[in-house]
Structures are given as C-alpha cells and as structure tokens.
C-alpha cells in the first residue's frame, strides 16, 4: 500500500537524447497524487518527450521514472497505470463512440454488462450522453476530444496524461474546456498531467506548473507564484507579458533594495533580495502594474504614496503605439532612456481609452512591491 504523502510520479534525473539532440536534460520532479500538473514550455522544449516517457512511448536515456512507487523502466505502455489523451485525440475512426470508449475495457476482458455501465458513466461525465452510436467523422473536434477523454477516464488510471489537449480547439471552446477540465479533474480525483505551450491554459487549470526550457525545469511553482515571483528572465518573459531592464544592485537590506537601471531609472523595492552588492541584475515589471499619468502628475501620486524615496519608481516617455483590446488598452511608450516599455491600462469606464493617444508625453509610476529582481 502506498502512503498518501508519496508522490504518484517521481521523475529522477531523467535525460533523453535523440542522437546528438538532448530533448530532456537531467530533469527531476515529483507529481503529487490528485494534483493538476502542467508542463509548460515553448515548442521543442522537451515537455512532450517527458510526457511520452511517463506514458512509456519513449524510454529515458538516463534516469528513472516511478509511478506509484514502482520503477517503470521495463514496463511497456500497455501495462502502465496511466492513460493518455493524444494531441490528435487518436479516436479510432472505424469505431463508434461506444466502441471507442469501451475499447480498453474490452481488451482487458471486463464483462459486457460492466463495460456498458462504465461507458455510459464515462460519457455522462464528459457530457456526451446521446452520442453512443455516432462515428468519429460525424463529430466536431471538441466532441472527439471528449470521446478521447472518456476513453481514458473509463480505464480509471492513476494518472491521466494530456498532450496539448486544447490546442486544436477554437478560442471560445478552449476557454470553456479549460474550466471543464479543471472541474472534471476535481470530480474524478485522478492526477492530471498536461502538456501545453499556452500560458493562459497553464495558469487557469494547474495546481502546479513546471516551466520547461531547453529540456530543463526553469521553475516549478503554483500559477500565481510563477506570475508574481518568476525565478528567472525566461519564466518572467514566457509566462505573461513583462518589461525587463538590466541594472545594478545598489542597495540590499532585509527590508529594502534598490536597483539602478540605465534604461528605466532608479527602482526601489520594499523587500530585500539576496544578491551581492553591485551585482548585475534584471528588473521585471508587469505592464498592468505600471500607472500612467499626464506629465508631472505621476510624481505627485508617487510622492503621496510615500512607499519609495524621491526620484525612484518613476519614468517618463512618449506614447509610440497603442492597441485597444476592449477590456484594457496597451501602450508602447518610448522612454527617455531610449528603451520601450509596455503599459496596460484597464478601461474602467467607457471612454478611458481616449485619455491618452499617440505622441502624448506621459509619466509613469509603480508601487515598491511591484518590480521583481531577477539574478539570471
């Protein structure tokens, strides 16, 4: 019997090389039972290879994968307690929905009555009741995906693996499926491991996200930590949109720190960072955490807040670009230092987007807890 505290999947120093190409480079991570785990990364980063190694379609060149405490090195895909939902869904085109969903149960010799009950139950779960006799080519992409989900869930796997589950759906359906998948996972209580290149998907569904870059784990954290406390420039840039400025650490005490960025100005933080004085660091500042003002006003607002010394956390520039997205408006502002900074401004009332326009000179400020100092 397994303890509840033991991770359901343990990946230990796993590397995978295809010829000279290293797809996965010495990755170690634990996936806890019952969590919605997301492997996030750009295409070609090795996330799918990692998923396929868990499923057993690829074997690690080095290292070990344990599922429920058991070494999977010599266990073929058809004997592993995991099931996969493929990117192409891989619904059998020559079988109707019932036969597709019941395939795994038929193979493992489950009785006909039980197959009927479990298939009906699984179809109900993915909201495909009434589609029993449909052939796959009579269904939409979203419906086929539900068939693939039901076909895997009906096996009651310990872990459900999903390879880019939403990439082939249109935007509206994708947003809906994000909620449904999270809801489904909550209902069945099976551990989900999903691969995606879409940060929105990762942030909205995951309990924890491993950001993968060039075959290595760049950061492993819950979604909000990933966004608010990125560990490095790659994560800051990949997850959400961000402004990054290079600078020098000029002050570092337990409750405050300051960075001098030639491109942006003096940046003040109301917490310490652990970096050597004078070190080369990067400041990451999210567009929505920057306030936009008419020239001069920013300084006054910042001073009134009294969360940073005079002359810090302020910048001035000229609007070079503007894109109205309905809920927010994005501004690209040419800073006095020569760099471009992106600011997003919520349209809290109907005509907010008219406040600023191309060529306007503006000032900006941000709060002392907004910037993130990155050491790499």
């Amino acid at each position: 019997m397994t303890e509840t505290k033991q991770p359901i999947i343990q990946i230990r120093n796993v590397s995978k090389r295809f010829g000279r190409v290293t797809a996965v480079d010495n990755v170690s991570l634990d996936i806890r039972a019952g969590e919605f785990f997301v492997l996030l990364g750009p295409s070609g980063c090795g996330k799918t290879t990692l998923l396929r190694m868990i499923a057993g379609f690829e074997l690690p060149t080095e290292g070990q994968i344990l599922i429920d405490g058991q070494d999977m090195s010599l266990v073929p895909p058809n004997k592993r307690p995991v099931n996969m939902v493929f990117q192409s869904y891989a619904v059998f085109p020559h079988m109707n929905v019932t036969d597709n969903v019941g395939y795994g149960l038929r193979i493992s010799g489950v009785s006909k009555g039980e197959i009927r009950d479990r298939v009906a139950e699984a179809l109900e779960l993915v909201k495909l009741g009434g589609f029993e006799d449909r052939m796959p080519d009579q269904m939409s992409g979203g419906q086929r995906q539900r068939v693939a989900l039901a076909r895997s869930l009906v096996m009651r796997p310990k872990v459900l693996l999903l390879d880019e589950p939403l990439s082939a759906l249109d935007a509206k359906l994708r947003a809906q499926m994000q909620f449904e998948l999270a809801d489904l996972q909550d209902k069945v209580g099976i551990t989900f491991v999903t691969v995606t290149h879409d940060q929105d998907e990762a942030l909205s569904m995951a309990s924890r996200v491993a950001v993968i870059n060039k075959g290595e784990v760049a950061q492993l954290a819950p979604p909000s930590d990933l966004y608010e406390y990125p560990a490095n420039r790659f994560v800051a840039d990949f997850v959400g949109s961000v402004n990054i400025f290079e600078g020098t650490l000029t002050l570092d005490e337990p409750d405050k720190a300051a960075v001098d960025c030639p491109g942006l100005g003096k940046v003040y933080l109301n917490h310490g960072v652990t970096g050597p004085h004078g070190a080369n660091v990067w400041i990451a500042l999210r567009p929505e955490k920057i306030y936009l003002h008419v020239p001069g006003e920013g300084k006054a607002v910042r001073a009134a807040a009294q969360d940073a010394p005079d002359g810090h956390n302020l910048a001035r520039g000229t609007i070079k670009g503007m894109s109205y997205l309905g809920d927010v408006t994005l501004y690209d502002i040419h800073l006095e230092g020569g760099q471009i900074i992106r600011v997003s401004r919520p349209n809290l009332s109907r005509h907010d987007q008219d406040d600023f326009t191309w060529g306007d000179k503006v000032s900006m400020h941000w709060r002392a807890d907004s910037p993130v100092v990155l050491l790499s």
Partner: protein
Amino acid sequence: MSGPLQDWKSQKKPFAAVASAPVFWLALFFIAPMTIVWLYSFGQNAGPADIDISGTLDNYKRATEWLYLSIFLKSLAVAALTTLICLIIGFPVAMAITFVAPKWRPWLLLGIMLPFWTNLLIRTYALMALMGTNGYMNKGLGGLWEGASWLRTLVGMQPLEAWTPVQLLYNNFAVVLGLVYVHLPFMVLPLYSALDRLDKSLIEASLDLGAGHFKTFMQVVVPLAAPGIVAGVMITLIPALGAYLTPDLMGGTDSQMIANVIERQFKRANDWPFGAALSFLLIYAMFILIALQSMRSNKVKEVR
C-alpha cells in the same frame, strides 16, 4: 469542388476538347478490338482464316466443360494462393517502410519498384537460373544438407547420404514462387499507401489502452488498412489469374493456367472463336471480382 473549371456540366466544350482524344483512343484501340473478339466468341470457323459469326453458344458450352473449367478453377486457386502469400509477405514489408525514417523511404520504395524497370522475360529467366538444378538455390540447400550431415557425424550418427539436387523448376511450386516474385510490388504499394496514411497515434492509443501488439494489429491496423488490403488483393489477383509467361516458362506439363490454354487456341489450334470464349469467361470473372469490391466499398460508405 464546383468551381467553373471543375464542373464538366457547365463547361461542356472545354471538357469535350480535353476528353475527346483519350475517348477516341480507347474506342479505336480497346473497345473496337474487344468487341470484335467478343463477337468471335459467338462464331465458328468457316475456313482457315474465316470466322462465321453465327450467334452460336457452342464455344461457351465447350469452355464450361470440366476439362477447361478445372483449369480455370486451378488458375483461380494458384492466383489466390499467390495473392495470399503476397499479402503475408507484403504487409510486414509495407509496414516496415512506413516506420523507417522519412529520408530512407524513397530508397526502400525504389527497391520495391526496381524490378518493374526490368523486362518480365529477363526477370523470369534470371529466376529460373537461380532455381535450376545447378542454380544457387540448390547449391545453398546442398550446403545446408552437408552441414546437417557433418553435425550428425559430430554426434556420432551415420552421415546423411549424398545431396541430390531437388527439382525446383517446372512444377506448381515454381509457378507460385514466380508469380509471387512478379506480383509482390503490386501488393506492397497499395498497402504502403494505406498504412502511411494511418495516424501512428492510433497505434499508440491502442497500446496505451492496454492492448498488446497483436491485438493492436488486429483491431486497429488491419481494419484501417482494409481499403489498401482490398486494393492490393485485387491488383494482385487479377493479373495473377491471367498470368501467361510465368506458368509457360516455369511450369511443368501439369501447371498450365487458363491463359496458356487461351494462347494455344489462338495459335496452335487456330480456333479463335473458342479462344475468344475462354478469354471472355476470364474477363467476366474479373468483372465479378471488381463488382464485388465496389459493392463492398459502397457498403462501407453507407455505414459511415
């Protein structure tokens, strides 16, 4: 599909212009001679070079006598056996080609198609050279025989008697082997094109759901490759049924096929009406096969 250039109904003149040449060609060189031969099958010899088309069915009556019917059935059996062996050998070959790295595939396909570029007669004689009593096949078998004999002496048993070459040629075995050799590419190519279109993740999905390789093959690969299997069977069976050269050169006195009988009517026996009747019986049989196949594929479409 209904663009101005695709729809022949709305563009009759250009369509007629494009179609007239091949239609004319087919009419002149295929339909007309076939019609003449078909009419001959209802005629009788009126002299050494004269055929009287009298509408008689005597030729067909004679063609369905047991003597000829048995040869006909035997041809069908040989062709069916050839097709089955081609399928058994061709399926793994086609499957292997779809699984190798894409850069090697054209070379492997080239290897399959290469024999097409060599004359059938030359290929057949080359095969006969291999299979003769002094050919390499017999030498190879002889080597194995002597090896076995040597092993027997090694464990203290009596050595085998000296190797006598086996008669590999001029029998039914040689005919089937020759036909398989000639027709294998016809089987491999349609199978390859069907298997190449098969989404590999379907195979992985089947494995993922607990099926072993054999079950995956039977439940997923074979049903999805069915159109390719049917096409391969048809394209192998039909020419094998009408095979002439292979049984003529490699067969013995008892391994003649229907095409050899037909040839004899037209040449040595100089009985064109009877030869025509036999030919058309063969053609009718092929029509039935093709009709069965198209009925089956229509049925599949309806089910979908």
